[in-house]
């Protein structure tokens, strides 16, 4: 029952409260990924929540700018709540981190803000877990990132997921050779993004694009698959830049194939979307039963240069809430918040050293602070799902009772579930520790 008091419960659109299981699930996922990222020698980066709007917007397109939360401070400066972390990392690296040995490896686990309609799996404030690998231009770096994406999804138990690998440089190299206006390039991108092959071919005909380029662009929406898609793309490449782009993607694919990771991979050159700052490979992850992507990323070799010395870089971000939805879809990601042990206050004082050791071993030990009697303790433990209760004790021993059956009810208790003395027993604190630590 909700409380109908005078207090205000309203939330602004796009944010939500996380507590109990939801908060625990999100934290658990992030803790798992923190461990994974650190095991690959990435270190955490924590940029500020808001920055100067014009600084943050250096590399982005008009479409993305509309999604930024803007705030005025009291001096009239326009600030922006960060819409993604990659741009912030680019700013930090470009302006500050000079003279460090390359590559730089950073990870982040944090919230970002985008002003868009709240969608399935994404509010206006949402969480991202991501990596940036900076200073390494080659396919080895791309392959490392993709390997970690796959491991990140494997570590949390997600099954049947798929990672689509694209190559923005292929499209860019073809278009660079054509004399197209920015509006025409946008129209091409739009048709490719909609997989509108008819519209795409019509535009290419109208603009009298040469056969080789038109064939390559016209086939883009359907250049999907495994090695055969790579071979087809290589045969379509109309210039050296496009060839290099496909060679690079093939090399990444081979590296991942040598690690037996190709079961999760699909070559997908049919996307011209994504952040405008992508210049090379792109990554997009999907999970069965979920109508939207769960992670995105790619190579961005020109972004850091907008802030300082140019450096090649590649990164990805996992949508934390979306991965949680994907796991939910597969009934994974259970969390148990119930304490392992409930202890009456005076027994907790007597057995303090033992309880401390149990906590060190990772057990959740709750001490009663409500002055409950024996029946009260057992009733509370049952409701909370706490399996064991210490209802009393002295320096030497604890009186231990299971909170759940088998039950024998004493006379006159009218099924109140009161534990009889025979299911309780006195145990030494040492024995108790051995028993519960198992």
């Amino acid at each position: 029952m909700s409380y109908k008091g005078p207090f205000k419960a309203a939330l602004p659109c796009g944010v939500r409260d996380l507590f109990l299981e939801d908060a625990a699930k999100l934290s658990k996922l992030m803790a798992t990924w923190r461990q994974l990222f650190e095991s690959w020698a990435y270190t955490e980066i924590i940029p500020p929540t808001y920055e100067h709007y014009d600084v943050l917007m250096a590399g982005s397109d008009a479409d993305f700018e509309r999604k930024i939360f803007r705030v005025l401070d009291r001096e009239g400066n326009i600030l922006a709540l960060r819409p993604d972390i990659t741009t912030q990392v680019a700013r930090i690296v470009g302006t500050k981190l000079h003279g460090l040995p390359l590559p730089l490896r950073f990870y982040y686990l944090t919230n970002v803000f985008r002003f868009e309609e709240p969608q399935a799996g994404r509010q206006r404030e949402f969480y991202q877990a991501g990596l940036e690998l900076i200073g390494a231009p080659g396919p080895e770096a791309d392959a490392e990132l993709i390997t970690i994406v796959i491991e990140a999804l494997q570590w949390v138990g997600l099954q049947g997921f798929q990672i689509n690998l694209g190559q923005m440089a292929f499209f860019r190299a073809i278009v660079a050779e054509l004399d197209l206006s920015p509006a025409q390039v946008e129209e091409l991108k739009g048709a490719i993004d909609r997989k509108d092959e008819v519209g795409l071919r019509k535009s290419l005909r109208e603009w009298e694009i040469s056969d080789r380029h038109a064939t390559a662009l016209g086939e883009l929406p359907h250049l999907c698959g495994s090695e055969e898609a790579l071979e087809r793309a290589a045969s379509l490449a109309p210039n050296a830049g496009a060839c290099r782009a496909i060679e690079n993607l093939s090399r990444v694919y081979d590296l991942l194939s040598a690690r037996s990771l190709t079961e999760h991979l699909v070559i997908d050159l049919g996307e011209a979307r994504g952040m405008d700052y992508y210049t090379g490979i792109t990554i997009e992850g999907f999970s069965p039963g979920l109508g939207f992507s769960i992670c995105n990323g790619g190579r961005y070799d020109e972004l850091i240069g907008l802030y300082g010395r140019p450096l090649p870089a590649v990164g990805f971000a996992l949508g934390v809430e979306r991965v949680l939805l994907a796991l939910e879809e597969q009934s994974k990601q259970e969390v148990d918040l119930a304490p392992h042990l409930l202890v009456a206050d005076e027994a907790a004082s007597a057995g303090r050293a033992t309880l401390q050791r149990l906590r060190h071993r990772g057990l959740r030990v709750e001490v009663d602070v409500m002055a409950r009697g024996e029946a009260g303790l057992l009733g509370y433990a049952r409701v909370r799902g706490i399996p064991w209760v210490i209802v009393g004790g002295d320096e030497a021993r604890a009186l231990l009772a299971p909170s759940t059956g088998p039950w024998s009810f004493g006379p006159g208790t009218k099924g109140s579930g009161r534990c009889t003395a025979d299911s309780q027993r006195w145990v030494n604190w040492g024995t108790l520790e051995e028993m519960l630590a198992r």
Partner: protein
Amino acid sequence: MKDSILILSKETLSVALPKGRLLHPCLELFQDLGCAGLMGILSSRRLLWEEPEQGLNFMVIRPTDVPIYVEHGAADLGIVGRDVLCEEQRDIYEPMGLGFGRCRLVVAGPPEIRDENLHLRHRLRVATKYPRLTRQHFLKQGISAEVVSLSGSVELAPQVGLADLVVDMVQTGRTLRENNLVEIDEIMSSEACLIVNRASHKLRLKEINHLMKRIADVTKKFKAQSSKLGGGELDG
């Protein structure tokens, strides 16, 4: 037509179909693809229809809801008019036009307004079911029109003083004529389009490509017919 659309998978694909004037041609299309009992939808109140042999599920919903179902992945595919797609602006694939349900989105008004310079009006009210496209169309000309967003019977609005103009779909123009309205400008032409959820397209590429190929084969027929007839016979 014995071969199943989805011989490739045991899982079904779900298809969202729009209520209204596009429903009948959509049902004919899938009937041609082997969904024998599908016309039963017309006399049924069930919202979900299964064709297990073809590996397809159908849901019949309001046209404006079709892109929403598909974007969220509640349906893998859908059929809806291009007018609705342009109005709704959803993040979905629109791989092909189907050649039926052709019509045009036009600006119309009483005959006396046709030769008027709309820029000189201090106030212009436009009634429509397409508020986004309407606003965009007039703003492009520098006119801040008041858009009156209605959900049907738009042609009534100028006759009762609710609006000066209407923006609506026309097929033959009969509704306009009978309500004493004339066409002033064309905003876009439309036809039924196939739309696909992005993730479904990625995860079930083979099945969806197979289905799309078969749809393309059947709709060639529609396209040939409609170019002969020069449009549909229904009025929008």
